[in-house]
């Protein structure tokens, strides 16, 4: 089985669930409300982050860069032997596991998919379903099991991870939504492992990208519903942990990570910060469907990853090219990020205009130039040139028409 086969199975499954679930609500109205909530939060991000710092009843840390974030979290884990982790893309972004290991602390991923990926020494290939590139059999083999039975796989992982939860010194999780008004962190999940990571170890360290903040519970409640709906068609998250103060005898830390996010505010692609990481654009994307998440060689993959990674870091100008601009991503997005337009905007921002395009524009902005170049150009469309341009590598070479439409029109009807 190939990665593409596994992806098509998963995508088909989730697409069906999503279609059923969307039909139960006024989807366009839901999207527009979600967009407005997120757009407002992004517009007021510094103010809302300031409010969250005041209302949250744990200790708040600020990290400007990934390096700061790693240092802060490693310091908070000082003296720990082992930490359990809830699935967090931010943790991947700041490469936290490597830093923990280097400090002699063993990080154990407790989301089953993330655990599989960690065991295999891979990156997550999907922001929501880290091991979606694997079949059930491949997943079982990773854990040394023979069968491809999902139930057996889960039972095995449960027994194994239960020991880890009980023995861990620190639990590290991400954050899906932070409510500025009440100082509440909302963490949603399907497996219950995050609940245990938050609650069992004596210390909970939550790491959060600045853009996850929203103003109040009205907005947060809507996002809590639309997130699982857009993700895999469930009407509500299986588990939701609300964290606002440490339990007695425990302590609680929140690490607010910027790492390039503030720089996206006010830019042409600001709306990308509205993302709630549902993964809908990944399954919708026909390019992602073919290549899978690893082909992007970045933390975040798919259309959202191509925009976010490039906008955040200013690196990887190749990423906006991982799209045929078909627009399925923007259509699927529950917060209406115009991803296809942004992919083009980023190509503009970084794309070298180039002498070739300048020459082309000079010629094709006059009918005479167009005629002259196409007369020469179509004759020069030899198969070898089409191979060089990238057309005829995977396809037969094109044959330009012997007479263009305009030549035929003029021959018949005059100019």
């Amino acid at each position: 089985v190939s990665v593409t086969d596994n992806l098509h199975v998963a995508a088909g499954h989730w697409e069906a669930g999503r279609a059923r679930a969307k039909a139960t609500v006024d989807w366009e109205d839901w999207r527009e409300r979600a967009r407005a909530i997120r757009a407002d939060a992004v517009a007021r991000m510094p103010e809302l982050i300031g409010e969250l710092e005041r209302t949250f009843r744990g200790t708040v840390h600020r990290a400007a860069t990934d390096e700061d974030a790693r240092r802060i979290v490693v310091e908070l884990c000082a003296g720990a032997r082992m930490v359990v982790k809830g699935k967090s893309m931010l943790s991947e972004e700041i490469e936290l596991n490597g830093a923990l290991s280097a400090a002699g602390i063993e990080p154990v991923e407790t989301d089953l998919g993330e655990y599989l990926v960690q065991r295999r020494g891979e990156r997550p290939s999907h922001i929501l379903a880290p091991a979606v590139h694997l079949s059930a059999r491949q997943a079982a083999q990773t854990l040394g099991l023979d069968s491809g039975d999902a139930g057996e796989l889960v039972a095995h992982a449960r027994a194994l991870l239960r020991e880890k939860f009980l023995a861990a010194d620190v639990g590290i999780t991400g954050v899906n939504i932070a409510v500025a008004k009440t100082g509440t962190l909302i963490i949603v999940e399907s497996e219950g492992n995050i609940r245990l990571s938050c609650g069992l170890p004596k210390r909970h360290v939550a790491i959060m990208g600045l853009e996850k903040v929203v103003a109040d519970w009205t907005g947060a409640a809507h996002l809590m519903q639309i997130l699982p709906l857009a993700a895999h068609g469930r009407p509500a998250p299986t588990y939701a942990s609300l964290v606002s103060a440490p339990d007695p005898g425990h302590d609680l830390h929140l690490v607010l990570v910027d790492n390039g996010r503030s720089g996206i505010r006010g830019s042409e692609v600001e709306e990308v910060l509205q993302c709630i990481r549902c993964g809908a654009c990944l399954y919708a994307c026909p390019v992602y469907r073919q290549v899978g998440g690893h082909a992007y060689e970045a933390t975040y993959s798919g259309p959202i990853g191509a925009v976010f990674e490039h906008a955040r870091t200013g690196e990887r100008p190749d990423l906006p090219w991982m799209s045929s601009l078909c627009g399925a991503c923007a259509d699927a997005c529950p917060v209406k990020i115009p991803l296809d337009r942004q992919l083009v905007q980023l190509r503009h921002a970084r794309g070298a205009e180039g002498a070739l395009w300048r020459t082309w524009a000079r010629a094709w902005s006059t009918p005479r130039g167009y005629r002259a170049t196409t007369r020469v150009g179509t004759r020069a469309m030899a198969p070898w040139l089409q191979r060089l341009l990238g057309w005829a590598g995977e396809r037969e070479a094109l044959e330009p028409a012997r007479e263009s439409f305009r030549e035929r029109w003029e021959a018949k009807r005059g100019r």
Partner: protein
Amino acid sequence: VRVQLFVTCLVDLFTPGIGERTVSLLERLGCEVEFPAGQTCCGQPAHNSGARAAAGRVGEHWREVFAADVPVVAPFGSCVHHVRETLGAGNVHDLAGFIVDVLGHETVGGRWAGGPVAWHDECHLLRGTRTAAAARRLLGGVEGCEVVQTERADLCCGFGGTFSLKKGAVSAAMADEKIDRALAAGATAIVSTDPGCLLHLEARARRRGLELRALHLVDLLEPEGHL
């Protein structure tokens, strides 16, 4: 009704027959078709390739060539979507949208005896101009034409302009998914409204040695049956 034909560069140079059949269809429906001779391209290839200034210059020329008060019609949804979105042109229509939504025809006939066909939704008709339903309706009115059911007709075929050159292998894999589904459903041709998709799908099918044609909707709307 006076109509300005925007034939598009790809149709002009590679598939002029699509342009000619567009003209004869519009004339059959009583339109007076003009062909503004100065037209070249809308600038979309440069726009999508990151060359904003070059796209702007060619787009500006497009605007000078076409009169704003006479409807512009093109057999190419992607170009229509581009001039609407990027140049802000209002009175521009894809062929199917113009016939169904502007002229108000439910069907324009057509005859087909070339075997079962699979429909491929052009991305920019589906999500851009939102006239994919109009195109499907016209296809439904073609006498003798069996349209086979294929799953995910809405998936992109992998053309994407410069994408097809830059990411050739991925582009071809996307075409293969489309082609394989059509063949599995028993189709002898894929029908769509985007001449770019059609060139790409046909060139890919031929490379694989497959007997599968790629046809424009307008090819099936000929009264006496085309090809």
